[in-house]
């Protein structure tokens, strides 16, 4: 409940404060957001599975974001940033889909 409130609060703050993204963060922010979404769906699934753990959620969230950003950073340094970003988004998207499928099975039993 508090987590959902926090999500809404964050969205509202982002919409109304209109901060500018710092230049060094611009390539990484979209990937980080997708990675965090993946962590969020993973957490929701584990919650429905009954194996949710706060610590695991926090660690997976932070690790997801950092690893995604690291991969993109590495890709930028190697000159394949765009391709690696696409790869990361694809992988995370697949994970989000599978998590969403598990959540759906739990909620609708279908």
């Amino acid at each position: 409940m508090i987590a959902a409130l926090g999500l809404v609060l964050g969205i509202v703050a982002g919409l109304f404060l209109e901060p500018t993204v710092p230049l060094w963060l611009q390539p990484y922010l979209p990937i980080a957001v997708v990675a965090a979404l993946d962590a969020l769906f993973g957490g929701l699934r584990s919650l429905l599975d009954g194996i949710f753990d706060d610590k695991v959620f926090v660690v997976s969230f932070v690790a997801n974001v950092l690893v995604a950003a690291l991969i993109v950073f590495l890709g930028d340094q190697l000159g394949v940033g765009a391709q690696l970003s696409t790869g990361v988004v694809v992988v995370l998207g697949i994970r989000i889909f599978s998590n969403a499928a598990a959540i759906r099975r739990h909620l609708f039993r279908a």
Partner: protein
Amino acid sequence: MSSPETGRAATTGRGRLVAALRPRASRGQLVAAVLCALLGFAAAVQVRATQDSDLSGLRQTDLVRILDDVTERTARLQAEARDLEEARRQVTNDTNGSRAAVEEARGRARTLGILAGTLPATGPGIEFTISDPDDEVTADVLLDALHELRDAGAEAVELGTLDGPRVRVVASTALVDAGDGAVEVDGTRLTAPYQYRVIGDPGTLSAALDIPGGVLDVLSQNDAQGLVTEQDEVTITSLRPAPEPEYARPAPEDGDD
């Protein structure tokens, strides 16, 4: 989740979700909330940044590629503009050229029309009146006079009576004695006094008629009288229909012009 009061209801996924929605302030919940808030914030910021500007969110390689595209497109459009301007210049030149050609053809048609007798003509010249009280002037005399006039550079000639019919004299004009002192010119019967109206250099024309043993001498020997008056402007209005050639066609020219 693992707290004892929710444990019994949390056997199914839905039950666990409902249980999780109950507000409880534990440290883990707060941390998760903070992370979720961070995610929402970042997502909202990113969405807004993406909507705000297309280019500022792109990485360097993409920007270079876009710049290349734009440069290439500019070059292509400039080349196209050059081609179109070239085409336009060509079309303008062509238009001017064809206009000049039409003007030239029109001028040539006018000249030919005067020579062929299909157009009225005006210019300096002479009026040559032949009075013939004894009907001694025959077609031969008139023809001699016409040859003399042509030799002297007559450009347009008209033969007629003083106040009667007038006939444009061209290359194919025939003069025939019609009896009773009359002369038939291209089917038109003329009687004395005759009058030539000629466009050409007046001095040359009158001098050509006046040479010793020339036309005027022959006329006076035949008891006829020739009177030449030089005019600043002679206007010849009698016309001759242009015959349509039945067999002859323009031969193709060699080369362009």
